[in-house]
């Protein structure tokens, strides 16, 4: 069990900068999820942490010890790979025992450790099998088991669920969560799936183009995204954005004007901006409602997606743009319907030119938890 501290970590491949200075504090026992689109540097960061790649610049501390340049095993980390990376010529037992054997642990101890871990993961009946004789889910467990037996200070997971089918993914996700609660170990987990991030993480690190975009608890990121990128990344369907201009800048009640000339009221501090500045309004699909009388919009339904308990309405609002609404599953709308809907001023988000979020006033849900 250990804390991990990253201090201005940079990575260059040749002349290409991949990571531009990452700072991160991970507490003992924390489950941290690195999330971002492919190519954002999250997997590279994980490989730097593991010691498989050298850190170009910056300091990495595990338990307050600087571990740059130390080999993976000496850092006390264990890694679960996306492909599982099981040794194809070794049976499950040997796969799990390999690290301990290399470390020169005595046979008795190794056997005990492996069997204990196998029981915990319910794969103790598979110890004689070769990886190719296992199902995807079983391989996944063996890969986790191989990490557990070494009692690492930090677990690194590289998209461990992405090779599983949908139902197995949900099940394994739940089990991973339970396993973490049981082991109480520090976990760093890379994924591109926001559901995994929201459900598993104590803390989520959103990465974009080699930088940390925002760090926070799952609900923090949802309620208080600091940038348009984070706002668009967390939430499903993703947040709608409409281009607009400041009509009246104000520290509390900002007025915005859409392309069509429609005026929108938002409880946002826009005192730093001036009338006429271009901004993006963010509207979450779940915050718009047909009954709400504030900020009325109107448009034509172009498509409906019924998910059972709720439906997604795709609405065309002419020159104002297009929106997705999340509405109750019991609605009777049809494509082509003309509908009206509204959104409370406190529910709106506003992003300036550079994609930075403006402060929301009285954001009526939980305040940002300080990190």
């Amino acid at each position, binding site marked *: 069990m250990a804390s991990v501290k990253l201090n201005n970590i940079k990575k260059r491949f040749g002349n290409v900068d991949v990571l531009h200075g990452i700072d991160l504090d991970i507490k003992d026992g924390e489950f941290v999820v690195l999330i971002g689109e492919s190519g954002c540097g999250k997997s590279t960061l994980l490989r730097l942490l*593991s*010691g*498989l790649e050298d850190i170009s610049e910056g300091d990495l501390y595990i338990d307050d010890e600087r571990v740059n340049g130390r*080999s*993976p*095993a*000496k850092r006390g*980390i*264990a*890694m679960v*790979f*996306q*492909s*599982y*990376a*099981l*040794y*194809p*010529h070794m049976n499950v037992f040997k796969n799990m025992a*390999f*690290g301990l054997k*290399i*470390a020169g642990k005595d046979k008795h101890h190794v056997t005990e450790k492996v069997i204990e871990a196998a029981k915990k993961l319910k794969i103790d009946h598979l110890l004689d099998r070769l990886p*190719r004789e296992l199902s995807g889910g079983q391989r996944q467990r063996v890969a986790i088991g*191989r990490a557990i037996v*070494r009692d690492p200070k930090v677990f690194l997971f590289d998209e461990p669920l992405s090779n599983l089918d949908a139902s197995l993914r949900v099940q394994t996700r739940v089990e991973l969560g339970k396993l973490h609660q049981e082991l109480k170990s520090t976990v760093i987990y890379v994924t591109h799936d926001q559901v995994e991030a929201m459900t598993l993480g104590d803390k989520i690190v959103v990465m974009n183009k080699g930088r940390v975009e925002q760090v926070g608890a799952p609900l923090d990121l949802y309620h208080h995204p600091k940038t348009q990128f984070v706002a668009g990344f967390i939430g499903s369907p993703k947040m709608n954005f409409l281009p607009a201009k400041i009509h009246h800048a104000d520290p509390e009640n900002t007025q915005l004007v859409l392309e069509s000339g429609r005026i929108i009221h938002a409880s946002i501090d826009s005192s730093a901006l001036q009338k006429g500045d271009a901004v993006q309004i963010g509207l979450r699909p779940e915050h718009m409602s047909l009954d709400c009388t504030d900020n009325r919009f109107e448009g034509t339904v172009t498509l409906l997606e019924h998910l059972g308990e709720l439906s997604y309405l795709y609405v065309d609002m002419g020159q104002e743009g297009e929106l997705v609404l999340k509405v109750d599953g019991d609605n009777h709308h049809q494509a082509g319907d003309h509908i009206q809907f509204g959104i409370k001023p406190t529910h709106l988000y506003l992003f300036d030119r550079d994609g930075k979020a403006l402060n929301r006033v009285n954001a009526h849900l939980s305040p940002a938890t300080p990190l």
Partner: protein
Amino acid sequence: MHYILRYVMTSSNQHDEKKPFPWHLVFFLGPGLLIYVVFSVYPLLDTLFLSLYDEQNGQSSFVGLQNFITLITDETWSQAFWNALVNNFKFFAIHMLLQNPIGLILAVLLSSPKLRLSSTYRTLIFMPTMLSVVIVGFVWQLLLSPLWGISENFLYDIGLGQYFDAWLGKEGSALITLGFISVWQFVGIPMMLIYATLLNIPDDIIDASVVDGANSFQTFWHIKLPLILPTIAMVSILTFVANFNAFELIYAVKGALAGPNFSTDLMGTFFYRTFFGFQLQQGSASMGAAVATLMFLIILVGVMLFLFFIQRRIQRFQF
């Protein structure tokens, strides 16, 4: 051919009376199969039969296994036969001891991560493999010739001059030297095949062993080597077949007599002499066929051993 067509006909008749005769099958398979059967399968089988006959004075008569008994026991034949067979095993041993280990080392070095110029090395080291064995034989004959003295001078330059000898001309060293030459030429094949297998091992598996704490030697020994064993086994059987079939190198460098004093005689050259004759001995098709049959059996046994013991035990790995 005929019974194959009949097979085709009966099978299609069973399934559907009205189905027309599958001419397209004859069209696609016929020409290739015909040439292969007439010029490869039939001659091989015919050779096996021929080895049971004696053809003298234009008369051929069935003699059963007499040709083989002559080969193995008759004094004029058996000495040459056993000599060639033993030499051939030595020749094979030289390849196994040198060609495959060197190929393995080169392949491992070539596959080191982030190695610059790796494809250039690969292309250049493979170059001799492309040349005709005959040409390679002559090239080395010139290089090792005491007349020219290139090798001798080279050895003096590195301080080993007193060890130089006309290796190709001495009974004791000629076969080993030819073995070295052949290894020099063909080391590219094990190198390339092992290299390909190494490339196919996913990086993740190597990474996993690094994370598990293995150093590069342990990673090689515990992970890579077991995974390339099937390739090494396959290279070995390819080498076996090629060695027991070798002829050109000996013929080019030492002629059909495989001198000095038959010390470089292999099954291939022995077969050639038996079939076409040499000096005072007349060539004999049936004795030639008998030698070829023995070569066939040796190769067959080798391949079978490979298929049933090695191939079955060493599984291929799907990644």
